[in-house]
């Protein structure tokens, strides 16, 4: 009996080792801007800076102008060829407005560009249009790829900027996600938590 138990332990151990190391192929540094305007939380801008190798892959196909920008035609092709499919991944974004998950994520102003000669940047705006009220509201957002193909850098407080918040009191914090893990030890990336209300 003991031998059998030992065998099972060995098997489970192997399982853990074999499964343990996932391999990301794309690395992204994510920066966010929270935009208020006209008494509303208008939405958030995301700026994804890619690693050199993924950048090169895209830049092999599309050469930007000298100023690092792409033509409208190139933008459309890049969007179709190397961005739109992310809809199937919910754009790696999980939004919670209060307790309600945002089921459909809309993307506006998708803009690829190149900085420092070789670093590819994607930036885009996710409209939220939440009226600022006297009661405090909370928006939580997490950025991660559950297929582990893409690795996002961990969130830091200085990755977030707030704009247009005159007359609004905004509190930002980075917290562990509130979503219940599906299994013990599940990797849950941090949440950006935005609390906002009319400033008195």
């Amino acid at each position, binding site marked *: 009996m003991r*031998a*059998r138990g*030992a065998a099972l332990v060995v098997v489970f151990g192997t399982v853990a080792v074999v499964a*343990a190391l996932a391999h*990301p192929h794309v690395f992204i540094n994510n920066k966010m801007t929270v935009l208020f305007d006209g008494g509303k939380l208008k939405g958030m801008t995301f700026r994804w800076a890619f690693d050199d*190798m993924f950048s090169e892959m895209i830049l*092999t196909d599309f050469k930007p102008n000298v100023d690092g920008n792409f033509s409208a035609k190139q933008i459309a092709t890049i969007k179709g060829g*190397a961005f739109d499919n*992310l809809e199937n991944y919910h754009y790696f974004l999980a939004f919670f407005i209060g307790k309600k998950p945002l089921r459909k994520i809309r993307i506006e102003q998708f803009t690829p560009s190149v900085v420092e000669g070789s670093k590819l940047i994607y930036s885009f705006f996710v409209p939220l249009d939440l009226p600022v009220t006297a009661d405090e509201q909370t928006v939580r957002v997490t950025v991660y790829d559950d297929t582990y193909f893409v690795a996002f850098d961990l969130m830091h407080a200085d990755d977030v900027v707030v704009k247009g918040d005159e007359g609004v009191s905004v509190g930002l914090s980075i917290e562990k996600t509130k979503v219940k893990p599906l299994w013990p030890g599940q990797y849950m990336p941090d949440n950006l938590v935005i609390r906002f209300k009319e400033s008195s």
Partner: protein
Amino acid sequence: MKRPALVLALVLASSLCFGQEVPNPFTAQNTRPRTGVFTTITSGAAAFLFSLMAPVQKMLNESLASMTRALKGSRSLGGLLLVAALALAYGIFHAAGPGHGKTIVSSFLLANEGKIRQSFIIGYLVAAVHALSALTVVLVLYYLIRGIFATGVEQANHYIQLVTFAVITLIGAVMLVRRSMGKAHSHAHHHEHAGPDDAQGPEAGLTMKSLLGIALPAGVIPCPGAVAVVLFALSLHMLAVSILAVSSISLGMGTTISATGAVVILVKRGAIRAVAGAHEERDMKIRRVVEIAGAAILFLFGLVFFLAQL
């Protein structure tokens, strides 16, 4: 006595289903990987270490890129060695993630009586084919076809995978039929055979031909990591460096795949011995269950991924 054997087979089966390669979410066209129970378990086990490993891999990726770039100016021996070393580490880590290569190799080694030494032959063969195929695909797309590169890679991948998984399904089916009809080899683990084990007959372990037969389809899907590295070096007009890097990556991946294969063989042996003890008959039975399970995994794995490519 059947129950523990079945449990064992199931556990082994589920551990092997971990190997699932996911498409590039950016350049894939209107797909996302199917998530099921197995992927959920996978990510469960993988998730925690992923959070620890991702920064290391990012560091490797970044230093490989910047070192390659630095080599452009001066081609020093030290720089070349550094690129080779980084690429080796990159390969070791890269192959450690879930991938079809390890799944195919592992289920093949479950279904057959392989030797540790052979797991190394098969591991390095798979890795060599995997990297060579990446190099070929990139060179052909880059110099000959010159279309949209990312789309080209996706398309090439599609056709290669279609053929590969058809072949894998076929190999799995043949093995499954043979094992279930009892045409299995008589196991020879107690009494070592004299002579080279790639001599002839299944009792003598696996033949070189059968090792090649599985290593080719297991490796021929171009390694996405190697594709990225080769393309990066090529864009800097450094063909020789890209070949150096891809060889080192292949060596690193081979090390990981071989080690996985060796662990599978050891676990299979240890588990059979632990469950069967000295009972010759029981040993035969359990061995048969494990081998049928291995063949079944190979067959199902091939079939699922073949159908997914249609």
